[in-house]
């Protein structure tokens, strides 16, 4: 898919909460003494943080890099599966906090872990059609893991925001094209009113994650006439440290291209922020002219695939806000008791 006019990323921002819990600490609780832990440690939102505050933080840093007035933002879309309100969009709260004024679109998206990139697609459409000048897509989550479940090791908190505008010399990267592959596949879900999601074990692999990620990637490459060797960097959705590496291998993409964007081992799976944060971390190191493949995955199920070409503006805009690694390195460890206390509050 391409919009009528080319669209680019005017600014991007990231935010990761300060708290960390080690997977080994979770393992200690449930009698898993360090065997086959899916990651090293994950980020935990503080007791007064939620998806809205995280989304705002990422958004304000994105705005700082974008260098545009908040009042020029025509849309704020947040993708998340940990909305504090089932009914009342967090997008309006973030828009107000940014000082964006009232002449804008706002809504929250749900599509499991690809809600953030779903927002990307909409923003590209709105900007490319000329309906709005700038549109912001945010992926933010404070994911809940059921105690003793496998996913408790990885369900984490974080956010990344992207301001889209027409491609220009002020965009740090432009969208070469995108596509989306969507099916009705119930690999992971959460019923309304339930505090924790459910999943079906190994069914979340081949028929779910891999089918959608690989298919979307191939669809995009075919549409754009590109091969895996044409990409300098690759970002996949990261539910754990293994899946993205395996997906890269299946596509014939060397592991090194994944590295800057592979955050899951040290911050966990930030759900709707997962591939967006990976993209932000990649933009932190990419050079003008680099081509980035980004493929998200959301259970339910679907994948959005994007090809971005980095532009010159990345060099001057990059230092205007903290890089992802500044957040990765800013950390305080908590124990399981503190984790339970913090996490309990997020369910209010």
């Amino acid at each position, binding site marked *: 898919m391409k919009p009528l006019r080319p669209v680019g990323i005017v600014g991007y921002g990231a935010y990761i*909460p*300060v708290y960390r819990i080690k997977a080994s600490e979770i393992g200690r609780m449930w009698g898993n003494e360090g065997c086959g832990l899916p990651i090293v440690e994950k980020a935990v939102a*503080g*007791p*007064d*943080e*939620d998806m*809205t*505050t995280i989304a*705002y*933080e990422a958004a304000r840093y994105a705005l700082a890099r974008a260098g545009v007035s908040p009042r020029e933002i025509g849309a704020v879309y947040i993708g998340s599966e940990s909305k*504090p*309100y089932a009914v009342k969009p967090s997008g309006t*709260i973030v828009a*107000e*906090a940014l*000082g964006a004024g009232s002449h804008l679109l706002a809504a929250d998206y749900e599509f499991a872990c690809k809600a953030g990139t779903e927002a990307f697609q909409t923003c590209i459409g709105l900007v490319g059609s000329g309906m709005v000048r700038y549109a912001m897509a945010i992926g933010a989550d404070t994911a809940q893991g059921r105690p003793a479940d496998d996913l408790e090791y990885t369900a984490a908190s974080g956010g990344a925001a992207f301001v889209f505008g027409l491609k220009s010399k002020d965009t740090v990267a432009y969208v070469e094209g995108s596509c989306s592959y969507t099916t009705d596949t119930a690999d992971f879900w959460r019923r309304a009113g339930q505090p924790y999601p459910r999943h079906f074990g190994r069914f979340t692999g081949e028929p779910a994650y891999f089918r959608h990620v690989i298919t979307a990637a191939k669809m995009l490459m075919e549409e754009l006439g590109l091969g895996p060797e044409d990409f300098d960097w690759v970002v996949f959705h990261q539910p754990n440290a293994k899946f993205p590496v395996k997906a890269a291998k299946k596509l014939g993409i060397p592991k090194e291209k994944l590295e800057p964007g592979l955050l899951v081992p040290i911050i966990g799976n930030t759900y709707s922020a997962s591939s967006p944060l990976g993209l932000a971390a990649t933009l932190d190191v990419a050079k003008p002219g680099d081509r980035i493949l980004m493929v998200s995955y959301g259970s339910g199920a679907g994948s959005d695939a994007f090809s971005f070409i980095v532009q010159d503006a990345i060099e001057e805009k*990059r*230092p205007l806000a*903290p*890089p992802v*690694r*500044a*957040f990765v*390195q*800013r*950390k*305080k460890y908590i124990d399981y008791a503190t984790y339970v206390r913090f996490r309990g*509050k997020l*369910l*209010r």
Partner: protein
Amino acid sequence: MGMGVPRFWREIPHKYRLMGSRCRRCGAVYHPRRPVCRRCGSRELEDVPLSGRGRLLAFTVIRRAPSDLDEYKPYIVGLVELEDGVRVLSQIVDCTPADLKPGMELEATPRRIRAHGPAGVIEYGYKFRPAIKWEPEGAEEGS
């Protein structure tokens, strides 16, 4: 009990964006907002966003909390002097008391102030945290 929706709603711009008042006549800046300038008596004051950065003057740790903040105790409250020169009382987060020293740089961050129970509205507003520092090549730890 607790703040009704209209009361916190009308405060939203000022709580989300840390706003104060500036006297159009003499330039004095105030927080919280004022309708009359204390310095020159003018009644022409405008809302202005305040600097989100400041330094810590003093802090305490609230251990006996008011009923609506009981779940957050112990929490740190500090006196922060903003770049504008105004002093602001605020919770300080993302750190322990041992991390804090008078004079250190802090920056504003939006957080939950309180939720009115599991079904009531959520009040958001500014708190402060140790300023996140970074460098182009390698980032330092922020706290």
